[in-house]
């Protein structure tokens, strides 16, 4: 599933411009972290997906790995502490984690890169909203696949 997500993440933006806001590997990492409710697994999954994403990008290796590893840990922690089977809960969790992911990446860019890229809050918010909605749809599809 992670591989498919990466594949689509690389392919879709070429065809659909809006898809550049998607972060399918992130949504996959969040879903499986919530489902498994295992923090160690979530860290490993998020880090692995993130490193693969780094390897496929022209940026520094480790950026997405750190961000997605953190998000995986938080997702697993939240799934243990809160009841997030409902749609609203999932939506809120997904939006929060996508926002945290975006902010963490922005901080990393600001600290590590010289000169740092400009911070675009509008793009961050729009990406959060788009991925939260996409996540909702994706999670329902993955639930059905899992039940089958």
């Amino acid at each position, binding site marked *: 599933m992670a591989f498919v997500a990466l594949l689509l993440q690389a392919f879709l933006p070429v065809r659909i411009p809006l898809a550049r806001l998607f972060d399918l590997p992130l949504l996959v990492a969040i879903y499986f972290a919530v489902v498994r409710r295992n*923090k*160690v697994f979530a860290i490993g999954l998020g880090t692995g997906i993130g490193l693969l994403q780094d390897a496929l990008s022209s940026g520094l*290796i480790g950026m997405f790995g750190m961000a997605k590893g953190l998000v995986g840990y938080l997702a697993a922690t939240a799934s243990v502490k809160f009841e997030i089977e409902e749609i609203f809960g999932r939506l809120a969790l997904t939006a929060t984690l996508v926002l945290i992911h975006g902010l963490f990446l922005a901080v990393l860019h600001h600290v590590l890169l010289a000169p740092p890229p400009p911070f675009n809050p509008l793009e961050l918010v729009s990406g959060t909203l788009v991925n939260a909605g996409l996540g909702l749809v994706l999670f329902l599809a993955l639930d059905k696949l899992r039940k089958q």
Partner: protein
Amino acid sequence: MGAQGMFNTHSPEFLEPDRPPERETPEKVQAFVVAHRAFFILLTVMVAQLLLLSAQVTRNHKVRLIQVWAVAILDPFERALHSVTDLTTGTWRTYRDLLATQEQNRELQRQLAAARAEIQQLSEQATEARRLRDLLEFKGRLSFQTVAAEVIASSPGEAAKAVFIDKGTDAGLAPDMAVITPSGIVGKTIAVFPHSSQVMLITDTSSGVAAALERSRVQGIVKGTGPNLCELQYVMNESAVNTGEVILTSGLDQIYPKGLPVGTVAQVGEGNIYKSIKLKPAVALDRLETVLVVLKPPSQALHALNSPSRP
């Protein structure tokens, strides 16, 4: 047997039997880590990726970020260590320098003391050389033969005013020979031994010197009266004598050559018939070092100097 027979009913184990025993600190740490295993794993993964990123990112002049961070972390410790090392070596060097300076100071003090002693010795030698030169000069001007002698001892006892010199019969000395210095007369030999002689000073009460006032030519006898004091006797009250007037030998005693200073008038007083004239000897009799002994044939009146000028 009562309830407290075999058991301590006040011990914690008896009161709270279910309370687990206290753990040691390492076990507490281990338990904490195990309880938060996932968090520590996340932390480890994040740090590892951060290091990976820092190895890729470069700063000025292509210096990797990880190098920048490593230098930034180690630099304060290196500076501190450098400061401590500098302070330690500096302190040791200062201590060593102080020790060397102390030793040098001691050595310089020793050298200074030795130099001062040498200066003192040379000063003494120079003074003696001057004195001997003056004596030689004086001797050269004398019309009679003399022999130089060193004063080697003084006679014990307050009453006797006498000294010993290092010349005796082996140098041609005999009793009743005048002993003089360039400043004036000292006394006469009274006992002569093979290698030394005893000299009676003019301040001795037994001494008598035929003398005359330099200006008025009034004659008298100089008798010793005490330490560093003499008296000119047998000068009539009518004679004019002034304080500070010089008294010379008259030569009439056949011992002292004529014209040698005896002393100066220190005090003049009127007596019944004769004046009471106190005089201060011309020679510092308490600081005698080198003297001349007049070698003369007996019963011969001698004139002191060849030249008119007095010593």
